[in-house]
């Protein structure tokens, strides 16, 4: 039995949210009301693919303005191997397993996108987490899967990971299940339900999951090549699953306007059957929903490509990440190539209305340095505080793609930035006081990727 279930132990420095045992909050509204402002952020830090002789790490960033080490990387949990490309990660338990007695939101499941190695980190001591277990790639390849991506806990205490390729880095991908002791349980779905895979989100009350498509690992790993797009090697479909049966019930082709659909987010309300997916290459956001007899997806936001001095072709925004605020009122997304973060009012989910946006870095943003620090990339992975008032982001996308579009990032490293959000007015403002510089770490400049909060966040918490 894993140490995930020790109901009588309390966390060392902070109690569980709401002062009670358990992995989460009973409702999204409870998350907003009962949560306290985030004090630490867990952020992926990367050296993969560079000449820096160091492994990727889990960075602990101090985001408590009252702390002496505010905006510093106060701890780094180094992985045992180089070459992982830590990318996305998730919790052993979230609010969807709120009702499972004795479960704690305590272990981070951290896959290596390139290595297919899966790491388990215990965050009992929030400021000093510890690596406790490693699942080696061979164990993953045994199930004819590779390239682990999105990690969600699923309601019974198990963990599900989307896998983008087969053991050779080719198609099809699938899903890998871990049990509550973080042992590989095996493949979750009947193999061959899908070809391409990327992100997914489930809404258990409606017995539904929606998954998206990047490409075969062998296609996207080396870098982005338009020839692969022309050859049809990049995704443009989303899949609607029967959650209980683990089968695809409907596949929606988003067409040319939906090329490379990446992050999938349902609204947080467990009642909702509305969600969004961002199509990175065609730079659109689609709204999907249950129309009764079938699911539909409609393009609701279109980011126009822009001419860039000295570049041959109009440049797409590249919508790489998006998130929905905990109160389901706002949608935020990043245009990694252009350099803006946008905020849309989605009170009417099928008609998002642009509320505000911020330019920071990117190829079009006024590349004003923050605190004299030149920004070597554009806004990428986003995370929002549970109360919806602080939006944070990092700038690295994927090491080989960074090298193509922001080559200076390898030398300068990433930054983590923050905006103050006013949810009542629907406005955002860049916080010039906040800068976490991943360029200044002992082993050398690092890339920074996904961000998570210890008490759950807007891009991973699901309710049942």
């Amino acid at each position, binding site marked *: 039995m894993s140490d995930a279930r020790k109901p009588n132990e309390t966390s060392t420095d902070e109690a569980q949210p709401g002062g009670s045992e358990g992995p989460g909050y009973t409702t999204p509204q409870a998350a907003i009301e009962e949560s306290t402002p985030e004090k630490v952020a867990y952020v992926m830090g990367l050296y993969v*693919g560079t000449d820096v002789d160091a492994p990727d790490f889990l960075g602990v960033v101090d985001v408590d303005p009252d702390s002496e080490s505010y905006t510093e990387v106060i701890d780094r949990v180094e992985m045992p191997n*180089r*070459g992982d490309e830590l990318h996305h990660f998730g919790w052993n338990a979230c609010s969807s397993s709120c009702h499972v007695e004795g479960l704690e939101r305590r272990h981070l499941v951290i896959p290596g996108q390139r290595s297919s190695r899966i790491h388990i980190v215990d965050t009992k001591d929030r400021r000093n987490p510890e690596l406790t277990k490693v699942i080696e790639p061979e164990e993953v390849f045994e199930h004819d899967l590779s390239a682990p991506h999105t990690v969600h806990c699923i309601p019974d205490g198990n963990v599900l990971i989307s896998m983008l390729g087969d053991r*050779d880095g*080719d198609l099809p991908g699938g899903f890998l299940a871990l049990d509550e002791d973080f042992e590989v349980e095996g493949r979750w779905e009947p193999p061959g339900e899908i070809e391409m895979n990327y992100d997914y989100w489930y809404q258990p009350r409606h017995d539904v999951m929606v998954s998206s498509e990047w490409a075969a*690992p062998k296609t996207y*790993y*080396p870098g982005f090549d338009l020839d692969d797009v022309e050859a049809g090697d990049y995704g443009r479909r989303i899949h609607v699953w029967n959650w209980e049966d683990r089968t695809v019930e409907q596949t929606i082709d988003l067409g040319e306007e939906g090329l490379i659909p990446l992050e999938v987010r349902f609204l947080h309300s467990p009642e909702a059957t509305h969600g969004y997916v961002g199509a990175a290459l065609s730079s659109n956001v689609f709204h999907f929903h249950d129309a009764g007899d079938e699911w539909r997806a409609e393009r609701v936001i279109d980011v126009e490509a822009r001419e860039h001095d000295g570049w041959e072709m109009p440049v797409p925004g590249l919508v790489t990440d998006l998130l929905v605020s905990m109160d389901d009122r706002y949608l935020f997304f990043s245009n990694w190539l252009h350099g803006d973060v946008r905020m849309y009012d989605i009170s009417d989910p099928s008609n998002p209305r642009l509320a505000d946006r911020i330019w920071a870095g990117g190829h079009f943003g006024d590349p004003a340095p923050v605190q004299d620090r030149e920004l070597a990339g554009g806004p990428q992975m986003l995370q929002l505080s549970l109360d919806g008032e602080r939006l944070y982001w990092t700038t690295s996308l994927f090491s080989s793609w960074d090298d193509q579009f922001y080559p200076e990032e390898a030398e300068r490293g990433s930054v983590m930035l923050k905006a103050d959000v006013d949810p009542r007015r629907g406005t955002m403002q860049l916080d010039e006081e906040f800068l976490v510089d991943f360029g200044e770490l002992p082993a050398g400049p690092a890339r920074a990727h996904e961000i998570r909060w210890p008490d759950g966040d807007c891009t991973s918490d699901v309710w049942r």
Partner: protein
Amino acid sequence: MSGGSVHETVLSWSAGRETVIGVRADESVLGAAERADLALPFGCRTGACATCTGRVVDGWIEHTRPPRALKDRHLAAGYVLLCIAEPRSDCRIEVGSDVRTELVSNPWK
């Protein structure tokens, strides 16, 4: 070490640094570099990701698995995947992270 052949392999970095290592007939260039305590970039170690890309400027190597991360144009230009590349002669190989970045460029530029 058995009496099998060991190929003298010169690794050269873009910054001008050079090192010679011996690569046994049954090991990859990446494996031999690790045995010699030299850090070369890598990721998947299965020939899918190109993170370990090198470029053979002299000599003959063979891939022990299909080099899925490389396209025909890359293979024709001498690029190899060091995680699955075994020398069949003495070699001279450009290594380091810059070699991978030569494989693809910014398509909008």
